[in-house]
């Protein structure tokens, strides 16, 4: 019963985190179902959706975990982050506080997620130009400082939603395929020329993530 859609080379778990109301669920629905709902309700617990995309001629299936932003709607489990290889930290460009709280969400990732998790800072609702409260440059330099990639999106008018997910999945794929060690599939000797796990490009901070800032 496996259809064409079910075949994939990689399965990556990506989590969406950020304050309540920044548009995580709409980013997810825009990416996975091309839907947008102006009056969506708060997410309770967690929601899942998947979509497969092509990266370097490989099929990458993204399993996206959309978590509740509101504290009282979050389940008691740190396992939201377990096994996650990517995270989108989302804020609302029209609400400065949601941007300030990005730091808290980063801390949460530090505490619970894999140290190598690929993190992207996402300023959503870029369509609200007249209400902008977070300057692009400020967020960009914050992202650079923390070794995150950065993009501004609009789930409402679809701007950059594809690009955001594609670039984080491509980045994960790049890291994973470079690190891939035999034993999973066929112990090919060709791959054993790669001796060390990849060198992550130097970043300003702890050298955990590769900065690859998107131009907007």
């Amino acid at each position: 019963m496996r259809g064409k859609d079910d075949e994939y080379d990689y399965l990556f778990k990506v989590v969406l985190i950020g304050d309540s109301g920044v548009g995580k669920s709409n980013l997810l629905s825009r990416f996975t179902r091309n839907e947008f709902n102006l009056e969506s309700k708060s997410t309770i617990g967690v929601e899942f959706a998947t979509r497969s995309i092509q990266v370097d001629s490989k099929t990458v299936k993204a399993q996206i975990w959309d978590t509740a932003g509101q504290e009282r709607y979050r389940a008691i489990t740190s396992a939201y982050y377990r096994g996650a290889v990517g995270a989108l930290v989302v804020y609302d460009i029209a609400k400065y506080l949601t941007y300030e709280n990005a730091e808290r969400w980063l801390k949460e990732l530090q505490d619970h997620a894999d140290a190598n998790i690929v993190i992207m800072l996402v300023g959503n609702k870029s369509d609200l130009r007249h209400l902008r409260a977070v300057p692009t440059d400020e967020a960009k330099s914050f992202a650079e400082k923390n070794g995150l990639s950065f993009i501004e999106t609009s789930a409402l008018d679809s701007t950059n939603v594809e690009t955001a997910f594609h670039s984080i999945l491509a980045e994960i794929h790049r890291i994973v395929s470079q690190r891939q060690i035999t034993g999973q599939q066929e112990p090919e000797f060709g791959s054993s020329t790669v001796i060390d796990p990849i060198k992550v490009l130097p970043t300003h901070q702890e050298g955990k993530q590769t900065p690859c800032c998107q131009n907007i």
Partner: protein
Amino acid sequence: MIDTGKAFCAANKQFMNGIRDLAQYSNKDLLVETSLTKFSDNLQEMISYHTTLFDQTQRSIKAQLQTFVKEDIRKFKDAKKQFEKVSEEKENALAKNAQVQRNKQHEVEEATNILTATRKCFRHIALDYVLQINVLQSKRRSEILKSMLSFMSAHLTFFHQGYDLFSELKPYMNDLGAQLDRLGVDAAKEKRDMEQKHSTIQQKQDFSSDDTKLEYNVDAANGIVMEGYLFKRASNAFKTWNRRWFSIQNNQLVYQKKFKDNPTVVVEDLRLCTVKHCEDIERRFCFEVVSPTKSCMLQADSEKLRQAWIKAVQTSIATAYREKGDESEKLEKKSSSPSTGSLESGSEPKEKLLKGESALQQVQCIAGNITCCDCGLADPRWASINLGITLCIECSGIHRSLGVHFSKVRSLTLDTWEPELLKLMCELGNGVINRIYEAKVERMGVKKPQPGSQRQEKEAYIRAKYVERKFVERQPASVSPPEPGPKVLPLSQEEKRLSGTEKSPLAARSSDSGIQRSADDSREHLASTLSTNSLCEPEGEKRDPPVPRDSTQLRPGLQLYRAAYKKNLPDMAEALAHGAEVNWVNAEENKATPLIQAVLGGSLVTCEFLLQNGANVNHRDVKGRGPLHHATVLGHTGQVCLFLKRGANQHAADEDGKDPLSIAVEAANADIVTLLRLARMNEEMRESEGLFGQPGDETYQDIFRDFSQMASNNPEKLNRFQQSDSQKS
């Protein structure tokens, strides 16, 4: 000078504070701390003396000289002014006198008079002035000397005080000096020792410079066979290699991230594992530990170390098998020793599972569980989880042959015990079960098998006991003492529930019809008759109020049904022994089953007991609600978790067309929503099994394990939604 002095004091104070800080930092070393504090105290005193000294200097010199300058000099200046004025007048008079012409006799006289007067006055003033000068001179000398003297005496007191202080301190300093000498000698000795050791080690290491610790010790007192650093490959997509401190202890392979962290268990029981070299990987010195559930890739620092680790694991596996029988007591002691105690008290519940030993310990503590339930052999290591009893290995084999609908056998040492199952074992036990299943043994003159009995004899007995249930009291056992207390209470609770929370008229009616005849009786009376009826009265069948006439099958069914709500496991076991149908349907109460009653009762263990005895997790009542619906409505997170683990179908909708997920979303119960969605996602993932390992699967298991642990160990954590629920209803 005074300012500099003050600056000196301030600097001194800072230095002192530094010493204090040092003393505080070295508070582990008593000697250093006390001496440093003492010195700093004394220096503090000195500084305060110094401050007084400067104060005095200020007062004596500055103040006195100032008054001298101000007062006396001013007086002197006044006198000087006066003198100058008068001398000017005299000059004028002289000039006038000289100008006067000879012919004017009158004028000459006048001028001479004025001149004499002025001259007189001048002489007077000049004398005064000279006096003034003399006085000032002498006063200046005395004043300066006086202030100098007081300054010197201030110094004298200062040094005197200092002398006193330090002479008090002197004996202590002498002491300390002696101690220091000794310390120096000790340190030198230690250094020599260390150097010696260093050189010996160096000599030894000439052969293999990177051999850290190769020895492993199977009988190590602390239970740690071998420990050391290894690289571990992460199981996520990144396959990161992390250096961790690994150790083999108590048949487990565990590791710690940091020294103080609680160990994470990689392999719960080495007996179920194999270890092998791994050459098809680009890193060197790798080996793999494979357990039934997962495999773990590890890397040692050198070939020698790899060999040592592999050997250590293999030896541990071998010893673990040998130890299985008689050495287990020793193992138990080990596991409770302080060095490994951290395993039990671990605050990291994710990876921590109850180990075999501790399951064994917990279960054997229950009344009667220290010997086999059927033959009395000591130290039984097997269990029947649907009966809640412990068994020796031979009897467990016989139980297995009965089939799982009679007995589900698990090992107390080899199997992994889910927390709810362990709790179930602890609620029942051989004592309780034998009171039910062996009630008539003595009366019937049947001989219970002994540890040494023949297998056939045991087998026949076990068959008679559990399959034919020959020794169960046909009528409710008169021996088992009813506990009136707990029975009265739950019933009244039940009534409250029936009339309160269940709002449907049907439920209210059925509660009436169930106990209609005693309606005028007081509630307590009713409760007690009910309990005595169902348990002790042999002729109770006729006047048993809740049961309609003839059905012999219904009675145990109802008993099970009610006991499930009351969370009374022994009662439930008895009802089952009397042949209660585990999926008995109460036609008068919405066609609910005992399992649904157990959900309403709110206990996790009762649900598990019914499930282990074949309860249908998907049976739905007249309103189309199954156990999962009810648990969701009531916000019983632990039960939701259990039912999902046991295969509950979450897509079924009740008569209002609602499935459990939509109910949970409406109630905004984040935990239950998460569990339901996670299970849903897991289903989908399983349907479309990917080429690679399924991280969803692992996370799913992790999260469900988290919740199971929480539900059994700290249920209050999961009750955060309970309050808002009760407020709503």
